[in-house]
């Protein structure tokens, strides 16, 4: 798809009703939506449940296949699939993280990870599925070893943030963990190689051209050498790093600020997600979804990013999460305070000829 020559639009494919409170988080199940396997999406909500939606291979429409309930007694804030898609982790304000297993389309509860003092806000699996990270209001980040027989062992509790930690996210190919916080910073955590000792290798704050208010979310591009973050300071920031150096073992290559997208949002940006083919989507408290792509215009001064489109009133209320699928026909899912999940696709405006 050439983003330079055409006008694009975001088309609503379907609205998924079922949650009875705001929807906080979304996760597309890995290895679904490809090679005849129907696409599967999980959504979690203030109604204390997780819903599993599956696309019909006949009609193409999504239906609720399962409701995961009665394990969390407060808001389920985030959910994440293991890389194999076998396990789903759900983080809750009740202070626990629950693990669920997909057994032939039925979801059975495996165990609960306890330890955080209060609200757990985010959960993330590393690329190989051998590590899990959680974070919460107690300002800490926990790293868990995923052991055989679905046993989970906490290997490290990372202190360093001075306020609640909003999100944790593993790098897509390396065992390096990123966390972002109400303290306005992004912290980067790396292990010593043996697995049990983890430490903060970098803090991205205002002094590194970082954010000036709560950092709500971050996401990586497909190759893992760029990161995007979004904030209550109404900006989106792009960061990059020489990851081949880090991967080669020559030492940690720090992340540096590449550019700031400001002036596009006028209320808090809660979610950003980078698609495999390079489109950054954002979801914000102004009910709009925006898409950004790298622009070839400004290459002299380094890459710049331009607004591809803005979908006003994508939802009736705040948008808490946007998430691209890795399905054959790339889809965008969005979750909102209005209690709905929407499925979108993006393409050239209909009626327009390809240049």
């Amino acid at each position, binding site marked *: 798809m050439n983003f330079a020559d055409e006008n694009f639009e975001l088309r609503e494919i379907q609205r998924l009703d079922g949650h009875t409170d705001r929807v906080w988080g979304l996760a597309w199940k890995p290895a679904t939506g490809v090679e005849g396997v129907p696409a599967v999406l999980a959504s979690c909500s*203030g109604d204390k449940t997780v819903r599993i939606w599956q696309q019909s291979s006949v009609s193409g429409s999504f239906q609720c296949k399962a409701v995961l309930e009665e394990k969390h007694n407060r808001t389920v804030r985030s959910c994440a699939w293991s890389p194999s898609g076998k396990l789903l982790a759900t983080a809750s304000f009740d202070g626990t993280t629950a693990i669920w297993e997909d057994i032939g389309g039925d979801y059975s509860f495996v165990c609960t990870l306890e330890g955080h003092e209060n609200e757990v806000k985010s959960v993330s699996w590393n690329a190989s599925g051998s590590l899990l990270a959680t974070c919460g209001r107690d300002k800490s980040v926990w790293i868990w070893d995923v052991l055989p027989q679905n046993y989970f062992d906490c290997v490290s509790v990372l202190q360093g943030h001075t306020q609640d930690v909003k999100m944790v996210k593993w790098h897509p190919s390396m065992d390096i963990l990123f966390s972002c916080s109400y303290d306005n910073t992004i912290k980067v955590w790396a292990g010593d190689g043996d697995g049990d000792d983890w430490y903060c290798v970098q803090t991205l704050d205002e002094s590194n051209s970082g954010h000036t208010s709560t950092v709500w979310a971050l996401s990586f591009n497909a190759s893992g050498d760029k990161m995007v973050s979004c904030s209550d300071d109404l900006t989106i920031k792009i960061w990059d790093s020489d990851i081949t150096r880090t991967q080669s073992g020559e030492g940690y290559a720090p992340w540096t600020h590449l550019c700031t997208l400001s002036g596009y949002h006028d209320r808090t940006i809660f979610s950003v997600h980078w698609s495999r083919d390079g489109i950054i989507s954002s979801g914000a408290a*102004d009910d709009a979804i925006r898409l950004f792509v790298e622009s070839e215009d400004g290459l002299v001064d380094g890459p710049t990013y331009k607004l591809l489109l803005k979908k006003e009133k994508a939802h009736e209320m705040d948008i808490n999460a946007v998430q691209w699928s890795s399905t054959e026909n790339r889809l965008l899912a969005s979750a909102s*305070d209005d209690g709905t999940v929407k499925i979108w696709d993006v393409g050239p405006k209909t009626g327009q000829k390809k240049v």
Partner: protein
Amino acid sequence: MVSSLINANPVVYEKKERRTRSAPGDVDEYAVEPIDQLEIFDHIRDIKDPEHPYTLEELKVVTEDAIEVDDKHSYVRVTFMPTVEHCSMATVIGLCLRVKLMRSLPPRYKVDIRVAPGTHATEAAVNKQLNDKERVAAALENPNIVDMVDECLAASYE
């Protein structure tokens, strides 16, 4: 007066006269009536202060003038004035204002709550907390906080 109160002797002001909304007869009762300052004020004026038997209006914590409303863009900002600079009740008052407006206004509304500039020692921290919806959501799942908020709001529904 109990000496442990944060502000033991607040100044109490007279309640403003309740205005009638508009003269009867010359209005189209089917017309959409935009939400205005007075309507917002009516929702919040009778909220009880968390530590005194007075309303936020009587303590001049909220005034009609400190409400900005843009009905076309579904936006409200309430700027409130804590009675003392170190008022630890500021976040509770702010939470009461937010909850009352959340329950009273159409869901399309965006609400910002802040303390008046220069009226609170930790102004930025209070404002940040009151406008972090995740913290607000978590607080509203705490039964003790909900009880406290509901007690302050009870009279405002009459």
